[in-house]
Each structure stands twice: as structure tokens, then as C-alpha cells.
């Protein structure tokens, strides 16, 4: 395996190990997502049909906002003891650093999504089980797109004042196409449509991921350097 991937895997493995030992990030994210779903429930009349049509939106809002919470932690680990400088002192490709970090964030988001789905079933009374296999692709593209954009901007907002506020302001507008694709395909799948019906959205989601991963692999060097 080329060194590039060995290095990104090393970063991914390190991040997962730290996350597993501290469990602080995922715990906070999951709790926050749970709260979002809960609050949304209060926003609608109990058992109204609106809740069902809003379910895809609620799912993604919970995932994205909880994800933003986790993203700002992602580079905070590297900031402790100035580890980021240690990483930059190694000859590792900045793209490899990006890829490792991004995959770590994506995995955290996927776990989060897996935790939110049952909450959705219980609280919003949405039938998800029959659509589950077809949901994998939309969720995968949505989280990967989010992780790519989010990792780039969380590295950027690391050194800024107003860090917590700046991250969503940068990330959310950029995410519009990916979010639209994710929500719309989620909705179509829940409504019982086959994947072929949402091919357009899937292509869009996949292309978005491809573009941002490629752009970030090239541009991450400029973000890391100082």
C-alpha cells in the first residue's frame, strides 16, 4: 500500500483510539442529536402527519448540528500539546492528514446517524426498517460530503476568533447541494421509491463528495501551513 494511505490510516486509527478511550466527542454529539429530535417533536402537533414528512429534514438537521459540534473537537485534539505542529514536521502529505481526519469524522457521523435512526422510529413513529438497505447510500454520501467540507473548515476555523460561530457559517452554505441531495433522497426512499428514482440525487451527492475530497486533498496544504 502506498505510504499516502498508510499515513492516513495511521491518523484515522489514532483518532479512533483516542475517541474510544475518552468517548467525550461521540457522547456529546449523540446527546445533542437526541435533544434536537426531541425539541422538533415539541415544535409540531403530536401525531400530526407533518411530522412524518418532516422526518428526513429532522434527521439531517440533528446529524448536521451534532456533527458540527463534533467537528470543532476533531482538530482540538491536535491543538493540545501542539500536536498539529508535530504532524506538520513529518514529511507526511497534507492530503494524507486531511484524508485521515476526514474519515475519522465520517465514521463518527455514521455512528451518530445509526444512533439517531432508532430515535426517529420511536419518537416520530416513522417506519424505517423496510427502507433501511436503500437508505445506506444517501446517508453515506451525505455524511462523507459533510465530513469533507467540515474537516476543511474546522482546520481553518481553528486559529480564528469566534471559532464556534465561524464553523457553521462557513460549512452550512457550502453544504447546500449535499444537504438537498441527502434530504430529498432520504424522503424519496422513506416514501417507498426505489433507488433508480433518485439516481439524480445520488449522482449529485456522489459528485459533491468527489469534488470536495479532491479539492481538499489539493488545498489542505495551504490550510495547514502558517
Amino acid at each position, binding site marked *: 500500500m502506498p505510504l499516502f494511505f498508510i499515513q492516513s490510516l495511521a491518523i484515522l486509527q489514532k483518532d479512533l483510539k483516542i475517541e474510544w478511550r475518552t468517548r467525550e466527542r461521540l457522547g456529546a454529539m449523540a446527546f445533542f442529536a437526541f435533544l434536537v429530535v426531541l425539541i422538533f417533536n415539541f415544535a409540531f402537533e403530536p401525531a400530526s402527519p407533518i411530522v412524518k414528512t418532516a422526518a428526513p429534514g429532522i434527521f439531517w438537521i440533528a446529524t448536521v448540528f451534532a456533527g458540527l459540534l463534533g467537528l470543532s473537537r476533531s482538530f482540538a485534539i491536535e491543538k493540545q500539546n501542539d500536536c498539529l505542529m508535530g504532524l506538520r514536521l513529518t514529511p507526511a502529505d497534507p492530503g494524507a492528514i486531511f484524508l485521515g481526519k476526514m474519515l475519522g469524522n465520517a465514521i463518527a457521523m455514521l455512528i451518530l446517524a445509526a444512533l439517531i435512526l432508532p430515535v426517529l422510529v420511536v419518537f416520530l413513529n416513522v417506519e424505517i426498517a423496510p427502507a433501511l438497505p436503500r437508505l445506506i447510500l444517501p446517508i453515506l454520501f451525505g455524511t462523507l460530503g459533510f465530513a469533507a467540507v467540515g474537516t*476543511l473548515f474546522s482546520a*481553518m476555523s481553528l*486559529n*480564528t*476568533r*469566534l471559532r464556534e460561530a*465561524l464553523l457553521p*457559517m*462557513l460549512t*452550512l*452554505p*457550502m453544504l*447546500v*447541494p*449535499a444537504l*438537498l*441531495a441527502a434530504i*430529498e433522497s432520504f424522503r424519496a426512499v422513506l416514501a417507498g421509491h426505489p433507488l433508480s428514482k433518485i439516481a*439524480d*440525487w445520488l449522482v*449529485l451527492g456522489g*459528485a*459533491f463528495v468527489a*469534488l*470536495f475530497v479532491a*479539492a481538499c486533498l489539493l*488545498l489542505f496544504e*495551504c*490550510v495547514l*501551513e*502558517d
Partner: protein
Amino acid sequence: MHRRPYILPFVFGMLALIGLAIAPYLVFVYAGIEKEMGLAQKIFYYHVSSAFAMYIGFSLCFVFSIRYLWKRDKRCDLWAACSAEVGLLFCSLVLLTGPIWAKPVWGAWWVWDAQLTLTLVLWLIFVAYFMLRTHIEDPVQNARFRAVLGIVGFLNVPFIHYATKLWRTHHPEVVRGEEIGLPPDMKTAFFFCVLTFFMLFFALLFKRVSVEKARDELESLKAEMRA
């Protein structure tokens, strides 16, 4: 002292002024009144021209941002930031005139049509661009991060465009297709407006750049005095 930047804004400024003087005649007198939309249709001339100016601004920002990351030349960053700012001005104009056009024609202030949604998202991205500008202290890092945002934001345009278009197909699309089949008098007025806004854009851009250059000179002089 460079001579060129002081001539260019003047030339473009004059051309823009002449254009702005003639354009109202073409728009209000020469071009006919559209039957269904009435006078509201006349908003379209400046609305669409502003959109063109906005795209010029954001694409220039994209090009200069790439060049900045490539050459690390401070001037490229200056040009990128200035084009983004003037682009954002025209972007705001598109967003303001959009609802004024939509209300009489479609009966609602805001319609989520693809083009308007795209403009809104672009506006948000470039507002974030200026947020970034004010919130990073290290000037070199500031320039680098903005360049990355300028590049990524512009690359995102086709995606946002496609996404908003797909999203709208769920509903009966509010077509602006009429624009394509404009009668000749309207076409003349329209092209003249686009040209005028083109001049206006560059006049404002050159002016903005000269302000920024003067400010830069002032800062370096101050730094020199402190040292």
C-alpha cells in the same frame, strides 16, 4: 506610483456613466411594455445585468485566489478580495430586486426558484468570506484561508445550481424562459444594460482596488514609522 490604475478607473467610470445615462432611455422609452407583467418586467434589465456583474466578480475572485495560492503574491489577494466585495454588492442587488420582481409577477416576495436560491447561497458563502477576513489576525493566513474559500465556493456553483434545479422540479417550475425569446427592442435594451453593468463593475472594482492599495501603502508607512 503606478499610472495605470488611475487611468483605468477613469475610463471605465466614464463609459459606465455614459451607459447609465443612455440605459434608462432604452429601458423606459425604447423597449416596449410587456403585456402580462407590465412595467415590472423592466426590473429584469437591471436585475439580470446585476447577476452577470456578480458572476464576473466571483469568477475573478476564483481566478485571483488560485493565482494567489500559486504565486503567493500579495497583489493577487488584494484583487481577489476586491472582486469578491464588488461581486457581493451586485449579488445583494440581485437579491433585493428579485423579490420586487417576484411580488407583482408571481404574487409572493420570495420564490424558491433555482436561480434566486443559487444567488442566495452564493451570497451566504461570500458573506462568510468577509467574516473570515475580519476574524483572522495573521494577514498571511487570512489571505490563504480566503483564497481556499473563494476557490471552493466558486467550484460549488455548478453543484448548487444543479441541486436547486432538481429540487424545484418537484413543483411546477416558474420558468424565466420568456427571457430567451425577447423581441428585438427588448433585446437591444437588455444587451446595452449588460454592457453598462460590465463597465460599472470594472469601474467600481478599479476604484476599490485603488482604495485598498492606498490603505496598504498607509499601513506599511505606519509600520515603517513604528520600527
